């Protein structure tokens, strides 16, 4: 039987970008508001899972030629390195700092090193969740 997925695939092509935008918003709004690397990563991975559900594994792997196991490993590496960087300045492991800068268009902005740690957490969560779900779905 010929499958007809027109509505699901058309809705998914739009909804994926909305979910990705919302995931990035959750990731960037952490540290002062509800949000952060973990739930931002979960939302980003739900967008990837929606792509896998609407299309198939081979098409998505051709469109996103990324090995998600390497993404998880790179995320953990970034998190550990951002913690080790504090040792170079004589602080304790995983110490974080922040400062205020005057950026063009944005005005006075708070830049903090927690963003690097949270980026590693988000990458690790995306890699682990997508890898687990794709490996579970492999039957036969």
């Amino acid at each position: 039987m010929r499958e007809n997925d027109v509505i699901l695939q058309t809705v998914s092509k739009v909804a994926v970008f909305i979910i990705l935008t919302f995931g990035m918003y959750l990731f960037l709004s952490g540290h002062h508001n509800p949000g952060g690397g973990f739930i931002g990563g979960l939302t980003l991975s739900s967008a990837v899972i929606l792509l896998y559900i609407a299309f198939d594994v081979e098409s998505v792997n051709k469109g996103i030629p990324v090995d998600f196991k390497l993404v998880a490993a790179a995320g953990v590496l970034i998190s550990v390195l951002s913690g080790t960087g504090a040792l170079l300045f004589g602080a304790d492991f995983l110490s974080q700092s922040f400062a205020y800068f005057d950026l063009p268009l944005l005005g006075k902005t708070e830049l903090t090193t927690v963003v690097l740690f949270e980026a590693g957490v988000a990458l690790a969560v995306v890699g682990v969740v997508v890898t687990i779900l794709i490996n579970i779905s492999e039957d036969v």
Partner: protein
Amino acid sequence: MTTIIFTTAIVLFCVAIGMALVRVIKGPSLPDRVVSFDVIGVNLISVVAVLGAILNTAAYLEVILIIAILAFISTIAFSKYIERGVIIDRKRNN
């Protein structure tokens, strides 16, 4: 006055969630359970929205979006499981 109206709305939404929960447990077939599961998700969104209106805050808007996204994806996954028997397929055959 508006607080009474909002509280009544929340109580009525909770009654609707309870009736949908009865359908989830008793439902004779799998599509009944999936549809009532989606109804529970929509009612949860409404409860959170009314709660945000009572407390006069914008802090619950992310919760609404998260519940909407998860309900959308889970409904699609259940529907595809009912229709095809497989959720993430290896290669499309068309």
